[in-house]
């Protein structure tokens, strides 16, 4: 929170230029805005492509990611000596096609990142709303819980939890239920803290007082009047979280604690690559690059989204 203070100060000092309103058609304003946020737009296009690739992996991947020919093991990528077009990015230690495993690996990363965000958001938003709106005992208890969990780094809790419960049931071949729950449970306080602060601010505003004067029930005020006003911070926070969860899921897989083999995951590909990295640089390079580019695109998209939703940056 504190690190935003200087930025907020500069946002206040920034002169608010209200341009002369010309009659610009709606779609033109949108395209102009998309052009201003072109990095984010490009990232969004990339991410959409990535999701499509993950969904249609069965049709895109050149090989079955679970099966390989041992005679083809540890083939280099096509541009290295002995590389062939048959395996563009080479093969792993049991002869499975690296490109196909990368394509299927996107499923694990994207699903874990997205679902863990849903879990963390569901717990965090509910508790944050309660702490902020009910106050008193509920606030004390929930705030204490938040403080306790934020004392230790998220990764430490995630490791501890997953170490005890294990990766658990794997749905559809790529969603490890416990990994998703553990990531969510280890990081709900981030949501709760942000939402609580928002609610504390919102509940003092006139429209809430007005709603109360009209005799609207607390539950209805909370769900219909306050919750929709917290959507912007929830969305912006969620993009950051998806990226964090993707990185962490891959780390758990890297340690052999995440989605169990033979499911292809970017993290387990990195782990497999470790013993061969001394003469085969491409093995650890590409899975990591996949994680890096994906999280970078999500972060850039999130930055753009924040600018889009932030009225201060909407002039010009």
């Amino acid at each position, binding site marked *: 929170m504190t690190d935003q203070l*200087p930025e907020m100060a500069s946002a206040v000092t920034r002169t608010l230029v209200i341009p002369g309103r010309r009659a610009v058609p709606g779609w033109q304003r949108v395209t102009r805005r998309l052009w201003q946020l072109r990095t984010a737009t490009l990232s969004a296009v990339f991410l959409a492509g990535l999701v499509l690739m993950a969904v249609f992996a069965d049709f895109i991947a050149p090989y079955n990611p679970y099966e390989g020919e041992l005679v083809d093991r540890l083939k280099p990528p096509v541009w290295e000596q002995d590389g062939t077009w048959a395996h563009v990015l080479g093969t792993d230690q049991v002869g499975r096609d690296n490109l196909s495993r990368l394509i299927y690996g996107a499923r694990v990363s994207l699903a874990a990142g997205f679902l863990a965000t849903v879990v963390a958001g569901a717990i965090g938003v509910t508790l944050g709303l309660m702490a902020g709106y009910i106050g008193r005992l509920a606030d004390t208890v929930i705030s204490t819980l938040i403080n306790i969990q934020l*004392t*230790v780094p998220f990764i430490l809790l995630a490791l501890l939890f997953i170490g005890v419960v294990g990766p658990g049931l794997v749905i559809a071949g790529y969603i490890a239920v416990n990994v998703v729950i553990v990531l969510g449970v280890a990081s709900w306080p981030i949501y709760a803290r942000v939402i609580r602060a928002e609610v504390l601010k919102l509940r003092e505003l006139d429209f809430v007082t007005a709603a109360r004067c009209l005799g609207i029930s607390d539950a209805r005020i909370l769900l219909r009047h306050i919750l929709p006003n917290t959507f912007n911070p929830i969305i912006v926070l969620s993009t950051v979280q998806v990226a964090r969860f993707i990185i962490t899921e891959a*780390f758990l897989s890297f340690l052999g604690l995440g989605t169990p083999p033979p499911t292809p995951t970017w993290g387990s590909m*990195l782990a497999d690559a470790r013993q061969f*990295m001394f003469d085969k640089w491409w093995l650890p390079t590409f899975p*990591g690059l996949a994680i890096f580019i994906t999280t970078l695109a999500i972060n850039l998209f999130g930055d753009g989204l924040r600018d889009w939703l932030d009225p201060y940056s909407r002039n010009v």
Partner: protein
Amino acid sequence: MTAYLARQVIQLAVAVWGISVIVFVVNFVIGDPINALVPPETPEETRQLLRHQYGFDRPILVQYLDFARGAVVGNFGESYLFKKPALSLVIERLPATLQLTVAGMGVAILIAIPVGIISAYWRYSLIDNVATIIAVAGQAMPIYWLGLMLILLFSVRLRWLPASGYGTPQHLILPAFCLGVFTAPVAMRLVRSGMLDVLSQDYIRTARAKGLTEWTVVMRHALRNTMIPVITVLGLQFGQLMGGAVITETVFAWPGVALLLINAIYRSDIPVMQAAVIILALIIAGVNFLVDVIVAVLDPRVRLR
């Protein structure tokens, strides 16, 4: 001040106690501690017998009080694996972890402060833009992959530095750099935005009007006021740094607490898991507390909050 300090101490105590409860609940309520002691194919009767022998069949509250009584005096029980007190195993590994953390923080500061100042001073210049791009990329970088890439470049290709291990200063360079690069983007953005804020203040104009050189204005007048919030935030982010250290240790086989913890997790060595997490939490909470106190001493307004 006394009231403020008392409140902070209580908060610290509650936080560490809460962590110990989480660790206990995870291991004894959600997990089954007997799994740590016997192979998976053990018949149920043997398990029951051992459960009784170890006291795992007692009411959970009794077991908790037992655990808490020990934990307060630093007795977390014996490691299942090493047959040594869990706490002493953790303490043995602590210097390596602290070394890495401090070195990583040092690297982060050495990168962040100069780059942050330059970026703010020549705002929107080429240097600023490049620094911002690198910072954005750095924040998306999985630290374990960065570590592997550093090993690939400096150990495998150039053969300058050892890929893993512990003992000499050469061993520290890659892990510390890795952790530093992980922490630097946040610190750099803080320095930059703080500096931008300060540079537009009246007293900076006054300093320039006095005819001071730009160097003195920036380094003496502006930087000092920038550093207070930067140090606060970095101090409070010590937990993040520890999290980064946990990951870094696994990549470079750095024999710190995190490596011990992860091996304990693999082997379900519950006493070591408990001791490691609680000691790390204690250190992080302690550092946060120190930062709070220092800030309160420097800035009286904080105490009233």
